[in-house]
């Protein structure tokens, strides 16, 4: 640790990256790149991927319904910071100057952010508690089941015995913006749609907090227990590790970050629909974790950036190129093909290719690399503990 090389790697690289992230809005403005919006969405996905990384990467639980927590977080903001519950008139520290006179519930975004995390964690525990005794693949399917039920519930929730809880497929619109009171700048008192800097710095802080928590957890007593459970449940139990609570922590903590990300996204996009929270999103997030390297924090961030970058920038760009080529060759097929529509082909192919060729991801976690590379077929571990 004392060597300058090691400390440069330990502190220099993160410091450089954070500096770059802090300066990004200025760089963007100087270059006139107009990338603020996509970068904010990418950051939301970085947060989601880091949350899922706790569950999949650290604890080794395959969660195919992670989108559920994202949706729950978004709906918390939708319900409590909009005119949705028009029968009620309640306001609490809202950034909206007129919130007192508007119908609906208007609670401060910052309060709701924490509430969304807690709400998602609560559901994480509710979903997790009965299911975490299951074998890995069954657990994955149960999480998928929940992930499918929750958006369908939001679709059907406009008529629960006549009560409109979720406004169905139309979704909740006009979600309040966050704001920081007592700041001289008006753009910060209520985040607007023209100046995206407040949004950017908010999500940046959220991402940094997520990274920080990921790192601290990885190196903690709980982090060791996660690896132990992932490697050999039987041995872990014999060492005194409570399998259920250990997994439940992973589940709840992962869900919390999903909830945070959902809350931010809801406020940022201002309207939420059940269709934004389909199974595809769960798979996209999983794909980010797998591509980057399960368990490796840098890897997961890179995976999220690559895949959302592909979605936002690369595929539309390729589409334009292909159309140009098609026009030049006067091929109507190439000139009209809609390439971004097939993005999930790419994600599916990435999942298959990574598992076949480089299961440890682009930036492997040292331990995960060893695990995934070994021919370990031994599942008796889970089966024995299933009986206890």
């Amino acid at each position: 640790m004392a060597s300058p090389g090691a400390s440069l790697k330990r502190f220099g690289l993160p410091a450089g990256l954070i500096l770059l992230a802090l300066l990004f809005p200025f760089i963007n403005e100087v270059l006139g790149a107009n990338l603020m919006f996509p970068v904010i969405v990418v950051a939301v996905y970085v947060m989601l991927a880091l949350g899922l990384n706790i569950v999949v990467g650290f604890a080794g639980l395959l969660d195919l319904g992670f989108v559920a927590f994202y949706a729950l977080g978004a709906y918390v903001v939708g319900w409590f910071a909009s005119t949705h519950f028009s029968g009620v008139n309640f306001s609490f520290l809202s950034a909206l100057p007129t919130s007192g006179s508007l119908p609906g519930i208007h609670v401060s975004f910052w309060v709701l952010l924490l509430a969304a995390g807690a709400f998602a964690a609560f559901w994480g525990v509710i979903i997790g508690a009965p299911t975490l005794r299951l074998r890995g693949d069954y657990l994955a399917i149960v999480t998928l089941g929940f992930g499918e039920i929750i958006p369908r519930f939001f679709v059907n929730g406009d008529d629960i015995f006549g009560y409109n809880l979720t406004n169905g497929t139309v979704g909740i619109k006009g979600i309040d913006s966050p704001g920081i009171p007592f700041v001289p700048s008006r753009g910060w008192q209520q985040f607007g749609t023209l100046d995206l800097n407040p949004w950017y710095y908010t999500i940046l802080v959220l991402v940094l907090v997520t990274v920080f928590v990921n790192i601290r957890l990885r190196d903690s007593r709980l982090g060791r227990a996660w690896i132990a459970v992932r490697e050999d449940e039987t041995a872990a139990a014999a060492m005194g590790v409570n399998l259920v609570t250990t997994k439940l922590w992973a589940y709840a903590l992962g869900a919390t970050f999903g909830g945070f990300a959902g809350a931010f996204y809801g406020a940022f996009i201002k309207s939420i629909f059940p269709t934004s929270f389909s199974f595809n999103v769960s798979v996209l997030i999983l794909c980010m974790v797998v591509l980057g390297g399960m368990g490796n924090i840098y890897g997961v961030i890179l995976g999220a950036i690559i895949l959302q970058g592909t979605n936002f920038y690369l595929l539309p760009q390729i589409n334009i190129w292909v159309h140009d080529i098609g026009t030049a060759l006067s091929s109507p097929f190439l000139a009209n093909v809609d390439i971004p529509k097939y993005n999930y082909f790419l994600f599916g192919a990435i999942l298959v290719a990574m598992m076949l060729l480089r299961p440890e991801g682009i930036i492997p976690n040292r331990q995960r690399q060893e695990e995934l590379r070994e021919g370990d077929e031994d599942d008796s571990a889970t089966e024995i503990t299933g009986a206890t």
Partner: protein
Amino acid sequence: MPPEAVDGTPKILEARGITKVFGGLVAVNSVNFAIPERAIISLIGPNGAGKTTFFNMVSGLYKPTSGSFVFGGTDVTRLGAHQRARLGIGRTFQNIRLFGTMSALDNVLAGMHTRLKSGVLGSILRTPGVRREEEEARERALELLRFVGLRSRETFAKNLPYGDQRRLEIARALASEPKLLLLDEPTAGMNPQETARLTQLIGRLRDERGISILLIEHEMRVVMSISDRVTVLDHGEKISEGSPVEVREDPRVIEAYLGTARTG
């Protein structure tokens, strides 16, 4: 130590009428069994006699079909493996089950899990208390590695030589500060020198640390040299019990082993 003296000492573990049935097959049949404090008890018997099944029931990985376990005065029959580990039952596995992709040191730290208190919030904030606890845990883990005679700390457990893996498993089990340590064929696959060193180590655990030991072992020289008492299982039933000398001369034991005995 004569058997009468052993019977007089308090018991760390009592098994009463333990039976385990696997889909119609009786693996262990109403076994009564006691382990005194500060004693080394060996469990021997031909292959398939139900020794490992019994072990798994003591450590809580299997639930007995009937019967009960009392550990240190508490009925632990209904407790899971992790709860028993917390109360002080530690174990190793016949087919080594280390956390292969953790370093030797981290394996021992993982074994210390129940003896550490750091909570989630404390770990995230890394409070002074958590920091101190982690440092102390590291110190103790290094001490344990020295105690079992392991020099490599940072190597992945799966990359250690076989004998070192066995020793690391014992260190990991000791990290949970057991009152009763279950060793499942600890000398399997070791050469005579390694076996001798390990036998000595097991003796030290009892003498220096006051740990009771339940030992499954095929190596008869080990069993005869360090056991205070020996219990023999055959076809899931206890057929003999006594001092090593008594058991060795018991005709039922000789019969059970005839033809099936592994060369020891």
